[in-house]
């Protein structure tokens, strides 16, 4: 069996795993989306408490997925880890700060003697809720729009600007994806609240906000998608020169990989269906459609970024330094070893699903907020 597994296959396999983790991460950022509304959505303190506890029981999944996403990237494409983290320093540090304050905010906000007061920790949740998805979306947009860096012959990165990643905020396409991810997270957050919290007034408020957030998401997402389809990208030729500019690169990627396009389309339809059945039919199961759609859409977008000889981390200042799944990956041996490890993922997914189901089988109610002693 092992002799049949080629290095190229493993590089594609691991890019798919990374893409899947990215999809899961964006879906699980419904936690951040919910956090970003803890001051604006609830009508009273009990509703706020219910929102925080609904999100708080899932924050570790998002956190763990982010850590695993980073770990898997380090293990399978270490040159990306070295180049992006070491180069776009300030963007990643800003993301880290926003997650650092999130983790403690849930546990400390309602505890007596928390020194800084509940409001401080709620502001931490708000900051993470707004900045986390926006910055991650902006950082991921550079997978398409490129960054200003070069690598020397020992693969040491030299960043082209003193802003070390913050310059990504000057590109409207990056901003658009950042905002699209933020509004998607908020949309998913609202759908999750509708699914998990049993409170009529809060539900009505959530549906009202869902319309606005869904529209904002669609506007920014479509802007990013259209500009992406019309823009040029870098292609790895395998010859000399190794990397060339290709007009309509990402449109070509969809056309050359119809299966990816169908997956992408199915994902977008599922996202819209989840929003639609909630707004028009009053369903509370929209999160499952939109959630699945989010995972699938992001998965397909990552495949577009990495497959079909694309440069998944393009350098706009030195094309030759751009990263592809071929030049940035770990060795054959490491990718193969980790492939065996990845076989455990379905088992992990199964126990997560089971535990999630057990915890969520009773909806969160205002009464519960006065009964349980481990509350956020």
């Amino acid at each position, binding site marked *: 069996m092992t002799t049949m597994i080629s290095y190229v296959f493993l590089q594609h396999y691991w890019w798919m795993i990374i893409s899947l983790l990215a999809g899961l991460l964006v879906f699980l950022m419904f936690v951040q989306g919910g956090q970003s509304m803890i001051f604006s959505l609830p009508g009273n303190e009990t509703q706020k408490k219910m929102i925080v506890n609904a999100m708080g*029981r*899932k924050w*570790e*999944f998002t*956190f763990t997925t*982010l*850590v*695993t996403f*980073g*770990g*898997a990237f*380090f*293990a*399978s494409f*270490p040159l990306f*880890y*070295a*180049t992006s*983290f*070491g180069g776009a320093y300030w963007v*990643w540090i800003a993301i*880290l*700060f926003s997650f*650092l*304050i*999130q*983790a*403690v905010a849930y*546990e*400390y906000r309602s505890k*007596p*003697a*928390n*020194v800084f007061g509940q409001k401080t920790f709620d502001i931490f949740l708000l900051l993470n809720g707004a900045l986390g998805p926006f910055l991650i979306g902006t950082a991921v947009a550079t997978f398409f729009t490129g960054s200003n860096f070069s690598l020397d*012959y*020992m*693969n*040491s*990165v030299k*960043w082209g600007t003193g802003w070390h990643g913050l310059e990504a905020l000057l590109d409207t396409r990056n901003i658009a994806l950042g905002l699209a991810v933020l509004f998607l997270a908020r949309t998913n957050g609202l759908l999750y609240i509708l699914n998990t919290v049993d409170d009529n007034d809060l539900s009505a408020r959530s549906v009202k906000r869902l319309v606005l957030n869904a529209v904002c998401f669609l506007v920014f997402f479509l802007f990013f998608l259209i500009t992406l389809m019309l823009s040029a990208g870098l292609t790895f030729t395998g010859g000399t020169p190794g990397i060339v500019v290709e007009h309509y690169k990402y449109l070509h990627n969809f056309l050359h990989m119809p299966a990816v396009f169908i997956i992408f389309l199915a994902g977008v339809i599922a996202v819209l269906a989840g929003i639609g059945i909630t707004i028009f039919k009053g369903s509370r199961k929209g999160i499952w459609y939109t959630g699945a759609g989010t995972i699938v859409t992001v998965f397909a977008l990552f495949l577009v970024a990495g497959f079909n000889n694309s440069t998944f981390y393009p350098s706009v200042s030195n094309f030759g330094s751009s990263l592809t799944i071929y030049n940035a990956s*770990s*060795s054959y*041996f*490491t990718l193969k*070893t*980790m492939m065996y*490890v*990845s076989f*455990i*993922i379905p088992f992990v997914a199964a126990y*997560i699903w089971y*535990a999630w189901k*057990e*915890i969520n*089988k*009773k909806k969160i109610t205002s009464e519960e907020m006065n*009964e*349980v*002693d*481990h509350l956020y």
Partner: protein
Amino acid sequence: MIEHFDMSLVDWSRAQFALTAIYHWIFVPLTLGLSFLIAIMETIYVRTGNEEWKRLTRFWMTLFGINFAIGIATGIILEFEFGTNWSNYSWFVGDIFGTPLAIEGILAFFLESTFVAVMFFGWNKVSKKFHLTSTWLVAVGANLSALWILVANAWMQNPVGMTFNPDTARNEMVSFWAVLFNPVAVDKFLHTIFSGFLLASIFVLGISTWFLLKKREGWIAKRSILIAAIFGLISSLTVVFTGDNSAKTISSVQPVKFAAMEAHYYGSENVGLTAFGVLKRSGKKIGDKEIMDFAFRIRIPGFLSIMTGGDKNTYVPGIEDLVYGKEDSRQILSVADKIRQGVFARDVLNHYKKAIMVNDTGQIRVIKNEYFQDKKFLNENFRYFGYASLMKPEDAVPNVALSFYSFHLMVILGFFFILLFIVSVFLLMKGSIAKHRWFLWIALLSIPLAYIASEAGWVLAEAGRQPWIIQDLMPVTRAVSQISASSVMTTFILFAILFTALLIAEVSIMLRQINTGPKHSEDKL
């Protein structure tokens, strides 16, 4: 770990990583040990059905939760700082180091995070048995996550199971099992998790004795002491055993660190182990580094030789031998020779990379065949690749005073903890523990000592490895990301403020919860 606070990029990067690691390690050992203690307590509750045991379990679980969140928060920073601050290192070793990190995420973190939600929120939602299983899985998950990161760290202390690929200019894994069962990894994992168990036991013991001092929560305090003392005694004895193994391994794979731990400068046979010592400046130097002498010490004759080689005639090389070499039958290569070997390896690599750049296929083939596929070159030159970056031989010597004191502080406190647990069990069995207030105070005041011992262990591991980030292959100066020192200084200050603020909040919340005691949980049920 932080020896020079100047404005250089390397020093600020080291300072930032050290800051994060030190803060992270305040919280992790308690998670490792308390998770098992809680699981044991809940098991007793499920088996006996006694609601008092449930109350006791929930009390410690509340403290666990407060500590757990901040441990996770600092952990994510640490993981990503490998990339943000040590990008050259990340590429040089990512092929090996990344794998344990990824496995840690897939295998351990998800186990921990999935079932910790059940543990905290599932009391009234899932069956007793499912809840108990979740609590045990949290403990297993937490300790499994420690395994993988310690495997990665062990590889930095003793790089094995890899080969250098000149085409990619990095080390690549050739044996996963060699990396996993690296002798340093096995010792390090066992020593670290049992030291976490020990710390958690002292935490439980100390807080319980505080309840006895305040004459409250007697039932819960005595049972907590019993479990903590037995668990702690077993753990502390295991820590001694694994520590001894660890020291033996260090003596063979990191002899300079081993010599620095003992401030052992001149090699000889029948070398005594310093049980206690105070260092002073001797006025003599090795290169530009001051040689430390003993102002006072208590030695166990011949024991260092016995520890390393099994008998007192074993020769234990000192720092001077290891720096300047010994050309007798012991054949210790000098650092100057290693630098020459490393420079040669680096030059060969540079020639190879230049040949690739100009596409000189003949030269590429020749260099590859004559050097990179030649075992002699790999064993005699490439293993010293990192030495090419040292300016002078004395640079290979870590901070001796820091290594010596951190090691001896850890060991002395370790033996004190054994005594503490033995006395706890004895007094508890006599039924008179509450009457011995002097002992209750000692147990309470031992809590910070456990943290000091635990941090000292990591200071030794990391500061003792200097100047290397990967032993013999890459010095820290070569590993750092090329960002401005002022950027790292700024983030260092931001992290320092934030970590400190969160630690203050954590301690304040913890103290309030302890003061409130377990009854509070029951009142709210």
